[in-house]
Each structure stands twice: as C-alpha cells, then as structure tokens.
C-alpha cells in the first residue's frame, strides 16, 4: 500500500473535523426544530417542515450551488453580512461545514423527532402540574427522554457528513490541504491513472471510521438504554 501524503492526512483530519463541527453546530438548532415540530402547533408548520426536509430530496449539488449564490460575494448573506464583516466563507473549510450541516440537518431533526414522539405526553403534563415551567420541562423531561434520538441523529449526521461530496465540492472546492475531504480526495485519485491504490487506501480509512462510529453508537445506545 502506498504511503499517504501530507495532503491525504489533512483530508482525513479535515473530514473528521468538518463532520464533527457540523454535527455540534446543528445539535441545538436540530433539537429546537424537532421540539417545535413535535410539541407546538403553529401556523406555517408545514412550510417549516418543507424547508427543513428540502435538502433531503434536492440533489446535493443543487444545495451547494444555492449556498454558493447565498454566501458568495454578491450573495444575499455573503454580500450584506459576511463581506462587511470581512468573513470569507466560500472555498474555505467553513463552507464545507455549512454544506455538511445543511445536507445533514433533516436527518438529525428526523431522528430527534422520532425520539420525542415516543415520549409519553402524560409525563410532560405531570411535570407541568408539579410546578415545572415550559423550559424546565424541556430540560428535565424532554431532553433526557429524547437522548437516544439525539445520539442517533448526531451519529447519522456525522456519518452523512463524512460522505458529503456534492454540496461541498461546489461551495468549498477541492483544494488539497485546505478543503479537500476524503471523498473529494478519492474522487481526485480515481480521476487520473495510477491513483487506484491511493483511492482504495482512502476507502479503507473511510470504512474504518464508519465502523468505529457505528460501534460507538451501539455502545452509547446501550448505556443510555439502561438508564432511560
């Protein structure tokens, strides 16, 4: 097996870094949206549901392109907010994080919702009549009881983040050592003669990371299953 180059190592690290950052950043919002969709009835719920789930059905390249328009120098957010603040997003690793977060977000929300919908409403009513305010009930009853959904959602999103390709390549580019993640590196190796062995090696790394993630998910799931 050929040795990994510095760019390959950085692709592996970057993949993990992007997936973890996107997952952690999405968690609070994912929890909040799942809570809204599960427990609160409001006007425009269907619209919110549609917006949240849209990235699931859209081709990732489309998501990436829309993000490019939105965050680019002349884009709605990029032009009015990021540019004046001197923040450069496009073609940096931050863009990869945003792309990964947007694409994985519906998966996370769905998992947390499944967890929340399984909570007996009577428990929440009981907590309220025992003196808990809304936020108190969320923290002491809903959060711990939807923990398995939260963990499952995070794992799913992390895994999806590791594999993110379409949106990332559009909005972050494929710059070795800067925005190149494992899938992008494999794509590059596969694209020129003699790169097959390196592509295979990176596939191996991908598989190894996935197996580790799945095993830890199982382990955490069992531990929380014992207490919940």
């Amino acid at each position, binding site marked *: 097996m050929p040795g990994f180059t510095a760019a390959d190592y950085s692709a592996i690290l970057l993949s993990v870094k992007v997936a973890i950052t996107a997952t952690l950043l999405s968690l609070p919002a994912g929890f909040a949206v799942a809570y809204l969709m599960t427990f609160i009835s409001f006007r425009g719920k269907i619209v919110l549901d549609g917006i949240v789930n849209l990235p699931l059905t859209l081709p990732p390249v489309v998501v990436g392109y829309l993000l490019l328009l939105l965050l680019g120098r002349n884009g709605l957010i990029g032009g009015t907010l990021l540019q004046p603040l001197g923040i450069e997003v496009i073609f940096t690793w931050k863009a990869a994080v945003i792309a990964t977060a947007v694409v994985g977000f519906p998966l996370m929300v769905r998992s947390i919702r499944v967890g929340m919908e399984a909570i007996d409403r*009577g428990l929440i009513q009981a907590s309220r009549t025992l003196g*808990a305010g809304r936020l108190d009930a969320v923290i002491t009853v809903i959060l711990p009881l939807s923990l398995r959904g939260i963990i499952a959602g995070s794992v799913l999103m992390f895994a999806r983040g590791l594999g993110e390709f379409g949106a990332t390549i559009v909005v972050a580019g494929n710059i070795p050592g800067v925005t190149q993640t494992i899938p992008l590196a494999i794509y590059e190796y596969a694209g020129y003669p003699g790169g097959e062995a390196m592509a295979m090696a990176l596939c191996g790394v991908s598989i190894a990371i996935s197996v580790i993630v799945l095993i830890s998910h199982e382990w955490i799931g069992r531990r929380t299953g014992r207490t919940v």
Partner: protein
Amino acid sequence: MKLSMGVYKRFGSFQLDADFEIDGDRIGIFGPSGSGKSTLMGLLAGLHRPDEGTILLNGETIFDSRKGLNVPVPQRRISMVFQRPHLFPHMSVKRNLLYGYRRCPSDCRTIRLESLLEVLQIGHLLDRGVAHLSGGERQRVAIGRALLSNPRLLIMDEPLSGLDDSLKFQIIDFIKNACGTYRIPYLFISHSQVETRIMTDRVLIVEGGRVTGLMTADELARARMKDHIAGYINLLKLRHIRNVHGMSVYEWGDRQLFISAGEDRPEDIFELSSAEIILCKRHPDAISARNLLRCRVSDVFETGGRLGVELACGKERLVAEIVRKAGEDLGIRKGVKIYAVIKATAFRRLR
C-alpha cells in the same frame, strides 16, 4: 376549597360547556367515559385552555378569557394524579418524589418527605428505579409525588382503575389517610360509584360535556340504583370481633353481623347489594340465613318501578329494594317495624 367554573371548550366535534360552583374538600366528579370529566379537569389544571369562560379557585381568578388572564400551570399549584402513574422513567423513586417539592416555593413546603414516606409506606423504595416497582407501589409514589408538591388542590383522574380490587382499597386508604393528614382538598374523578362514595362527600355529575347535577355520594347511589342489577350498594365499615362456626362475627353499630367472607383483620369494608336483603313482616321461627335484624323503615323511595326501602337499625342505615307488590303486601311505609334477612354469604369484602 371553593371552586367556580364557567367554561366552554370545543375539541373537534366534542363540546364542553360547564358551569358550576362547589365548596368542599372531598369532591367527586362522576360520569360515563367520554363525558368530559378529564377535559374539565385539564382546563382547571391549565393543561388545556378554555375557548372562553372564567375559573375561580378560592376566590382567585386563575382564568378569565375576557380579561385575557391565564395563570400558567405551575403557578396554579394544582397537582394531578392520573390513571397511569406517569413516573419519570429516567429518575429514581426519590428524585420522582422530590420533583414537585423542589419546585414549590419554600414557604409552601409543609408536607415533607420523611413524614410522607411513613404515611404511604414507601420508604424502602427510595433508591430504586421506577421500572422495578409493582403497580400499587407506582401509584403510591405518584400520589406521594403529587402531595409533595404541596398543591392547594389535588386532582385524581381515575387513579385506581389500573389496579386490582384488593390493591384498590388499600390505595384508597393511603390516599384518604394522606389527604386527611395534610388537609389537601381533592377532586376525585371516577366512573365507579363505590370508589366515589368511599372517597367523596359531594359529587358533580358530568354528562355529555355538561355538569348536570351536584349531590351527595349517597344521593348519587340512590339515583343510580335502578340502572344496576345489584341495585344500591350498601357499604359497611365493620369491626371484627371473633370467629364462630367458620364465619366471622363483626360489630355493626349495636348489632352483630355473621359474614362468611371475613378475614382476621380488625376492620374491613363490605359491600352488600340492596337486592340481597329480604324483608319479613314477622319474625321467622327458623331460617337458614344467619343475619336477622329488627329495624324500622326510615324512608321509602321510588326507583325504576321498584321501591327502595331505607332501614334504620340502631344508628346504622341499610337500603333494601323490593317490588311494589311486595311493598303493598308487607305494608311498607315510613315508621313500620320490620325484619331484614341477610345471608352470611351476601357480603363482599372490599379489601
């Protein structure tokens, strides 16, 4: 406790339109399933919001649609015990018990954990997870948890319906004991007449989304006796004296009753159907039934084509029922002396 509600709420095709005022500490809410009892209590506790109306508890307005006033659930301090215990599965028994206590303003904390553990006999369960409790233990913890939140009113929504009979009356004792000890007024929802009569003094009748009546628990039993095969259920709280010939002898006022379903416990509640009591004008010389009570007719009332006969035996009361023709033959009217005949096997022990 003084409660006044005039509320309207629409849930799909179901409409609740209730208007009543009630004063007392042991109130029953009685009605068939689906009549709106639980909805009404949900509005009171603040779990649902009435479409319009007002709710006053002890003179304080806790909801008024016109003024846009709606006291939030936690500030109402009305605890609920539901049909299922709804214990928090991720907490130990102790943390469950203290959930409401910790959220109750410190100047309201009159009920304390230590004394409650004794009253409900749940001290040995404290460190357990709630998954490892029996049905009766769970409901006791739920009741304890509700009481420890030191509510100004406790609502119990069919808290006994998931339990078997022997457990049911054991829990009734715990509830009565605890609410009595700490003077917590309660509303007790049930569709069981027996439970309602043991637990409450006055009863609100809820039918088809409306409050249709307010009566004492005994009036309710008399009003409903025509709908039941067993007629009126006499509830007798009896003190055990001795055993004789395989039967238990119980003290009932200044009389003694022979009962075959007895047990060696100092006190028990028995039910006796009004249909199981035979009335005789004269003393029968020899009879197989073991209980022959001389009593006086203290009231006669109509019940679905039959006669309900209230009998006074010393200070105690029994209700029997007979067909109208039997009433004529025996010359039943108020004040008449008569013999009541009851078989030893006619009594059913409630716990």
